[in-house]
């Protein structure tokens, strides 16, 4: 079945189908899976030498691997049995849909506050090893539940290179510049040393390695070799000997994640994209969604300040943590958002426009500006965002 029209036809069919085909629930990477080009979606961030490429490929396989029960899957609780379970839209390493959300809970006295964690834990996992009866349920006292979306891993290696001082330089806790937007860094105590949180919806994790350790235990239920930083469990209550995640394999996976390219721009040639980009700045989106932060290896075009902001209405109910009160979330990077619906921390916004319209609180002035735009201007702004 070959003819000279095959390639364009196939691409058109792929275009149509890519809108509907969305989920692959088991391993998708094998020895023949091509490595996407450098800089492409799901590809390496730079040219890798042969040894590095091998390690990257090994890491990708581990990221994709469905862990068996005999290998230590589960604490016994799980939200996933591989990293790819959640990080796969639109490519391995990226984001996930509503049905792989993580459920966090607590007690806020019916909204009157204050938020407090409960003795029954913080997370009600979705699944559990079948050899353990029942399921992990929320503490019966819980009255506030917050879902957390799967954040994309693409480009996180580059975010890891942003120095703490660069993030701190954008803080404005008292709104000294009067733009309504504050911005505070999340400070995490790592063995007595303060570090700035860069990862997680509430910026609760300082480094990419910490992030992967936290998820390996929290979502897949794997135990790890101690690195002295406090992320991930060293032991769990299944019967598989610890550590379940061999250190060399974890190192391979970390290398892969650290060298996943950030999501490239869509490249829509429509001149309205540039108009939208100017409006993005005019409206004030770029105050928090800072287009570029400087990393040690060069600019990081992430569209975030990596600071905590409260963009929610006063009656918002959610999870509070030490250093990140109820309503405060890290400015999510916007690179790659065209492919990572739904939006906001819990995925309540189906479209980019829904997500914009959900901004309040510190973003109130920007929202007034947004509402003041003409329909054409809004369309241009959305076109720009859909190109990220």
């Amino acid at each position, binding site marked *: 079945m070959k003819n000279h029209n095959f390639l364009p036809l196939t691409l058109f069919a792929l275009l149509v189908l890519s809108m*509907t085909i969305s989920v692959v629930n088991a391993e998708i990477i094998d020895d023949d899976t091509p490595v996407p080009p450098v800089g492409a979606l799901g590809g390496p961030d730079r040219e890798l030498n042969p040894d590095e490429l091998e390690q990257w490929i090994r890491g990708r396989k581990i990221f994709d691997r469905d862990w068996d029960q005999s290998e230590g899957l589960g604490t016994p609780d799980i939200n996933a049995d591989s990293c790819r379970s959640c990080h796969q839209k639109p490519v391995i390493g990226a984001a996930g849909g509503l049905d792989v959300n993580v459920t966090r809970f607590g007690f806020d006295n019916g909204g009157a506050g204050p938020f407090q964690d409960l003795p029954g834990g913080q997370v009600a996992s979705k699944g559990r090893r079948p050899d353990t009866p029942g399921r992990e349920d929320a503490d019966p006292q819980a009255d506030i539940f917050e879902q957390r979306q799967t954040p994309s891993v693409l480009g996180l290696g580059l975010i890891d290179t942003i120095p703490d001082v660069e993030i701190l330089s954008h803080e404005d806790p008292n709104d000294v510049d009067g733009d309504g937007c504050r911005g505070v860094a999340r400070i995490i105590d790592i063995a007595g040393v303060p570090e700035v949180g860069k990862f997680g919806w509430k910026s609760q994790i300082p480094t990419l390695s910490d992030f992967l350790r936290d998820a390996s235990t929290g979502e897949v239920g794997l135990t790890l070799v101690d690195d002295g930083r406090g992320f991930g469990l060293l032991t769990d209550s299944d019967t598989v000997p610890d550590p379940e995640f061999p250190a060399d394999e974890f190192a391979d996976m970390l290398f892969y994640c650290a060298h996943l390219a950030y999501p490239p721009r869509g490249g829509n040639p429509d001149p309205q994209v540039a108009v939208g980009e100017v409006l993005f700045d005019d409206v004030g989106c770029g105050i928090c969604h800072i287009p570029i932060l400087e990393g040690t290896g060069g600019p990081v075009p992430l569209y975030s300040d990596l600071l905590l902001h409260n963009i929610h209405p006063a009656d918002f109910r959610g999870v509070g943590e030490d250093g990140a009160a109820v309503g405060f979330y890290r400015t999510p990077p916007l690179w790659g958002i065209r492919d990572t619906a739904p939006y906001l921390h819990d995925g309540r916004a189906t479209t980019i426009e829904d997500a914009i319209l959900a901004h309040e609180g510190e973003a109130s002035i920007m929202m007034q500006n947004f509402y003041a735009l003409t329909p054409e201007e809004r369309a241009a702004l959305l076109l720009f965002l859909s190109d990220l």
Partner: protein
Amino acid sequence: MNIRISVPLMLALFLGSIFCLSGSLQARDFERGDVNEDGSLDIADAIEMLNHMFLGEVAYCQDSMDVNDDGILDISDAIVTVSYLFLGGDAPEAPFGFCGPDLTEDKLTCESYSLCNLGDAIPGLDRDTFESFVRGRVLMSKDFTAEEGLGPFYNATSCTACHSTPVVGGSSPIYRNFFFAAVGAPGSQGPIWDPPVPSIVMPAYALPGNPRPAFPDPSQVGNNPVTIVQRNAPPQLGVGLFERISNATIFANADPDDADGDGISGRFNTDGNGNLGRFGYKSQANFLEAFLRGASNNQMGITTDPFLGSGGIVSAAMLQVSAGFDLPTTDDDLIDDPEISVQDFGDIVIFSMFVAPPPKGEMGADELAGETLFHQMDCAKCHVPVLESDLGPVEAYTDLLLHDMGPGLADGISMGMPQFSTISLGTTATEFRTQPLWGVGLHGPWIHDGRADTMHDAILMHGGEAQASRDAYEALTPAQQQTVIRFLEAL
């Protein structure tokens, strides 16, 4: 049509799609000459070729009819076939006698060829049904949003969330397991959705911003015991054929009181309307449409209307496991019911009805040795290799009956509606439907809740009526055990 696709986007689509689609868009593998996909070339294939060329009969793999590989379907293809069969003429061009792609350039197509491609349609569908099948396969992967009716409670946002290993219509790893809560003492547990004490699929999620649902509702449960079990998504490939097996054929293997004294019973279950069960781990559902409508509502919160119109008010007690067959499903979100049209859901049902069973693998010496052992160990007493249907033999390796699997696998769940049958008492807590083995190697983990990492583990977990067979397997040498596994992998 002028579609502008940027290079990075094109690349992204291309790569994304290789990862997501493997198999569904690449040129299909096929066997040249085997037009009716029965695994051999004979005169029937030549007749089908002629019917297609001259009587306009539909066929979905033109490549398989192009016997001489000249890129044209004409009488010469039939002549080559007949000449090869009866006159010692040249064999058809490759791929002949094995599955493979067409290596020469032509304008012929191959839209479906289930003998060589997982998840394709069974042969012989009319054009309308085939097109519905193809639409249904795409809709299986549709991600429902809240605006489209997802929720208010859900475990998945699409069918393929749980049915995509290794292709659309398959099964899933453990993390897609769902929990099922049976309320009441085993043996008298309430049927699903049947107030005041419903057993229930436990949703992992409410729509974002809402509390995690407390299912089953503690206020309804009262002092009744609750049994929580897990279920791994059952594979769909070939399941439509179970509807085509007559009750009499299934009854023929039943031996509810073990009258023949071989230690193996074989009881049947009935659905909420007293019909002989065929689907589900407890054989608790009879009717594919209703089973799918139940899953759609219980797992995604997507409501549906029955295809033939509502039969009026059906007592809630009839809502066993899945939707009542003639009752609309409804939910409490803000989206009008039904949340998917009869046309669209019909396409999904058609896909499930006509998706072909997995093609059999190569049966070499090892596999044949394993097959012999399979029979010697009496595995085939429950995993009956073939049941007859009106569409021909169904080689599913199941009797579709319930068997006691012993305390190790017992899940404490009874399902079924004994009040509708004088001869079936529903399942006991230790009984399960014999799991079909076709394609069993394609979709680990194994056992109803995915507790077995390997097929070897799964065999060793058999107990109860299967204890003797299990022990016989354990007593084999590792090399012999390996041949049994090889045989199973070839199914």
